[in-house]
């Protein structure tokens, strides 16, 4: 069986206390909304057996309490639920989070090299990165790190082959056709094009959720410093 022949949605065992559901071959905002809708229904059905879930791109992982329910029963409940839902819900979570970014080589370590590679001006890169409305396709890897997509095709750039040992919190990066913000100082393989002065760590009031939308806007050096940015 190849990925192409697979019928969606389908459920697999994921870990000792989790199962994973794949909803489609490709991810898009509609699928995300559908996943969120099903997640809520599974949570309701599993009731106290439900522990938590992770939604990401085209898939959803459900963690459950193996002390109180068997894997067999969890699979049965989920399969039945999936067979009953036919319509793809389009009830998208329209919360838009706005993020100011200082796009400049002072903080965007790869801004110049990307501009050169793509034969674009820095202004064009800023314009292409900040015009689009991005979807949060997943939150994880590190606390409050949001996987955002999809970039304008021109901006898609592979990760560094050798990750940097550390980039400062707030660094805005690109990896293939995704973009994201490092919420804390972190080793980083993504191409860094700017930095936000906002605190996005787990202590921040801004908490990304799969399904949210994100809009970047360009700020200058002075605004960056006023908003608490450090150079």
């Amino acid at each position, binding site marked *: *069986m*190849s*990925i192409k022949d*697979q019928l969606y949605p389908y459920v*697999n*065992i*994921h*870990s*000792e*206390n*989790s199962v*994973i559901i794949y909803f489609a071959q490709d*991810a898009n905002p509609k699928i995300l909304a559908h996943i969120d809708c099903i997640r809520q229904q599974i949570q309701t059905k599993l009731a106290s057996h439900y*522990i*938590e*879930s*992770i*939604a*990401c*791109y*085209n*898939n959803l*992982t459900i*963690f459950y309490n*193996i*002390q109180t329910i*068997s*894997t067999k029963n969890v699979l049965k409940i989920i399969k039945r639920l999936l067979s009953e839902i036919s319509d793809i819900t389009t009830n998208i979570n329209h919360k838009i989070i706005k993020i100011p970014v200082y796009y400049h080589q002072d903080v965007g370590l790869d801004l110049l090299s990307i501009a050169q590679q793509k034969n674009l001006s820095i202004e064009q890169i800023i314009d292409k990165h900040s015009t689009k409305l991005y979807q949060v396709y*997943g*939150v*994880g*890897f*590190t*606390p*409050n*790190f949001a*996987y955002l997509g999809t970039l304008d095709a021109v901006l898609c750039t592979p990760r560094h082959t050798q990750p940097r040992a550390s980039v400062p919190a707030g660094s805005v990066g690109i990896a293939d056709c995704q973009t994201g913000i490092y919420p*804390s100082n972190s080793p980083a393989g993504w191409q860094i094009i700017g930095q936000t002065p906002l605190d996005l*760590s*787990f202590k921040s009031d801004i*908490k990304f*959720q*799969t399904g949210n939308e994100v809009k970047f806007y360009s700020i200058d050096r002075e605004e960056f410093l006023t908003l608490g940015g450090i150079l």
Partner: protein
Amino acid sequence: MSLKQAIFEVIKPGFLSTFQDNGRIGYASKGIGRSGAIDDHAYHWGNYLLGNHPTCVSLEISIGQCELIALASTQIITTGADLNFSINDKIAPVWSVISINKSDILRWHKPKTGMRAYLCVLGGFMTKTYFGSRSINIREGLGEAIVVANTLSQNISNNFSKIKRFMPRQFIPDYQKTLTLETYFYFNSLHFTQDNIKDFCTQIQSISSKNDRSAYQLEPQAVKPKNSKMYSEANALGVIQITPNGTPIIMMNDCPTIGGYPKIGIVSKQSLSQLSQRSTKQSVVFKRVELKKMQEDGLKFKDFFTQTID
């Protein structure tokens, strides 16, 4: 209100000494992982033998070079690795409850057997809680390892049982022998065939130098996925990821909540505890088990230690 007293001062922190308990659940969708004692077996036996509640916080001492001076008298136990543990330069027993006095110097020098020792004090350590757990996760910014001159506090308000127990010999693991990792292999993987899995099970592999609280990599390259292209998805403790070049990576307690490599199976919690006591070049083999058996063994273990709560 919790009462505490200063119980140790740190003379040498060691390579990596962090407070750990059972870890945190319920925050994975925010990117906050599980953490917790990487050797669940040694952690639980420590609290149990000392008569502590099974959720008490222990100090997980990795590799050694750690030295503490006692600031008061109390009872302690170290379980897990024998890091040439000594008190006032005299060899002291592992897996046994010990009374210590003010000014005693406890030292974990370097590994004799195993990699990680757990220090439990009566009532548990008193430390800061992050998202419902006192486990430290440095990568996630949830606390720090202990450092020189830190004062470590003991919780003296916990109700602890007066019962002291002896460790049954047969439950003290041998960390030197080749480790058999009990593993459930997915039966309908899109990335691996059943023949791939069969091959994988017949190979003896060894632990690479890339092993830490987040993950253990194995070598040599074992089995290549048919197709590595996939969207990122949730990660979990015990999951074996295979990189595009065929390197197996076993997810441990501090693993990121999301990962992007194909998975081949799941290692049991019991086996993960034993794996965490091993280091570079030690051998491992995989043994296929049913998911149900793995879950039942895990629950039996958990039940044994939680039944002791009054």
